[in-house]
């Protein structure tokens, strides 16, 4: 029943690499349609946790449900029902814009007609329709990011994972990118996003802050600031994640 309300449920989710515990028994839920910010210092265990949630890494122990599927027992179904985008890997540079949509649509098992109509629809709403035959490598980085996000939600996943989608992006382009995030959330897609920009943390419905494998805090930005007596999430972050690096 709980799966109806939550896009992500984890209970004591743990990952060990030899003697090192990268993720140490984390338990948290993400509501459907929520914009959830997953914050933490470098090396705190964010990437490991995210890989488990995307079905790419088997947990050592504990339980996780994503998009209604068990991440240990049914990782293939998890992969089919989520979208994923990262700063490091997004689109194929030597394919045209429409070819990238075609490729990823095919991978997610969409029908040809469906891919074509979704591609047109999304490119039109981005104002990129005239660039459909352009090679991705010749596009500015800000455009690539927006296209990569569109490709990640092409198959209408119930949840999309964004791993530092705005890393290295200038202040103007970051704000444009967040408009896409808001639009996706309004259409009902759950957004799970990592970022090192603390102003972006303020735009999330709730944020968690990971530190040394555990979730040190989880609440709405407002409540976190109130609880720790800070005026910004940035200050909360320095309070919780500072000093131990």
């Amino acid at each position: 029943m709980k799966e109806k309300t939550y896009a992500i449920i984890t209970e004591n989710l743990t990952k060990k690499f030899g003697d090192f515990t990268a993720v140490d028994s984390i338990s948290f839920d993400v509501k459907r349609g929520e914009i959830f910010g997953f914050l933490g210092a470098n090396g705190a265990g964010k990437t490991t946790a995210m890989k488990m949630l995307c079905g790419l890494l088997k947990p050592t122990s504990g339980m996780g449900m994503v998009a209604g599927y068990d991440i240990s027992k049914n990782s293939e179904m998890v992969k089919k029902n989520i979208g994923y985008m990262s700063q490091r890997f997004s689109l194929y540079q030597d394919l045209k814009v429409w070819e990238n949509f075609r490729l990823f649509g095919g991978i997610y098992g969409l029908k040809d007609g469906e891919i074509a109509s979704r591609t047109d629809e999304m490119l039109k709403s981005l104002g990129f329709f005239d660039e459909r035959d352009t090679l991705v490598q010749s596009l500015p980085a800000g455009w690539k990011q927006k296209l990569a996000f569109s490709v990640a939600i092409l198959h209408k996943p119930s949840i999309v994972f964004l791993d530092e989608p705005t890393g290295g992006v200038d202040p103007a382009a970051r704000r444009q990118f967040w408009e896409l995030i808001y639009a996706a959330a309004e259409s009902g897609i759950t957004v799970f996003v990592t970022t090192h920009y603390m102003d972006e943390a303020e735009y999330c419905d709730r944020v968690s802050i990971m530190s040394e494998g555990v979730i040190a805090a989880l609440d709405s930005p407002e409540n976190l600031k109130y609880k720790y007596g800070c005026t910004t999430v940035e200050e909360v972050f320095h309070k919780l994640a500072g000093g131990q690096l």
Partner: protein
Amino acid sequence: MSADKKPVVAENLSKSFGQVTALQNISFETERGEMFGVIGPDGAGKTTLFRILTTLLVQSSGDAFVDGYDVKGDFRKIREIIGYMPGKFSLYGDLSVEENLNFFASIFKVDPKENYHLIKDIFHQLEPFRNRKAAALSGGMKQKLALSCALIHKPSVLFLDEPTTGVDPVSRREFWQMLDRLKSMGITIIVSTAYMDEALLCDRIALMKNGILLGVDSPAGMVASYKERLLAIKGGDMHSILKALHDIDIVKSAYSFGHEHHAAISPDFTGDAVEKIMLELTSRGFNDALVKNINPSVEDCYMELSAN
């Protein structure tokens, strides 16, 4: 060779790739021991500029000098006296932390012990991982190692191309504290960044867009040249309030700034902007909105300049 011994001099520097003009008539100078920031959107030409100044790319026209040496003719000499940290992690992933450092020291024919004082503060944090392969380090640690390797030959000018992209706020703060110490040792630092809180820490900032240098100024000078009246707005449903602000005719521009929005007021409106915005928001159903006058930040200036 130029007689000018400024750390970096660019004179009408241009670079084209086929039809694309990446840099157009860029001219500027930096002072000894200056922290010189370069900001601008993707595709502005920042990396192209760095690659020309570090002699990895030859300009199409114009001149550039580093410590008086010509980037074209004296490239060998320049390579000996500069440190460069490219945007992409470019150390050897399958060498250990210590092996990477020793490798870079040997390329520059220096003994790593000789300049250890320069990197001591940074490198001591890496000591516990000295035998770990560089590929297995966390993002923050990789940056620290890359900086150590760029410093091991005691460069006169240090070029850092977006050194803190992907680095968390705590590590970023530490990284900039290190840069400050290097600056106090007399090293000139040219650094590009997408973080405006970092731009604020520079002595001067160059703003680039579409291959053109829009201006060079100190953060204080940049802020002082901001013309519009600026308001900060806070309320319950922030995203809807932003949309509403775009809709109000006396608002020239409105952007989200973390926990609040900033709205620049059109110069045509001369009345009480705080009261007017409060009224407009209330009439649209936002009864809890808080509005106040604020001073612009570097990021406000950036948003204003990049919109024009």
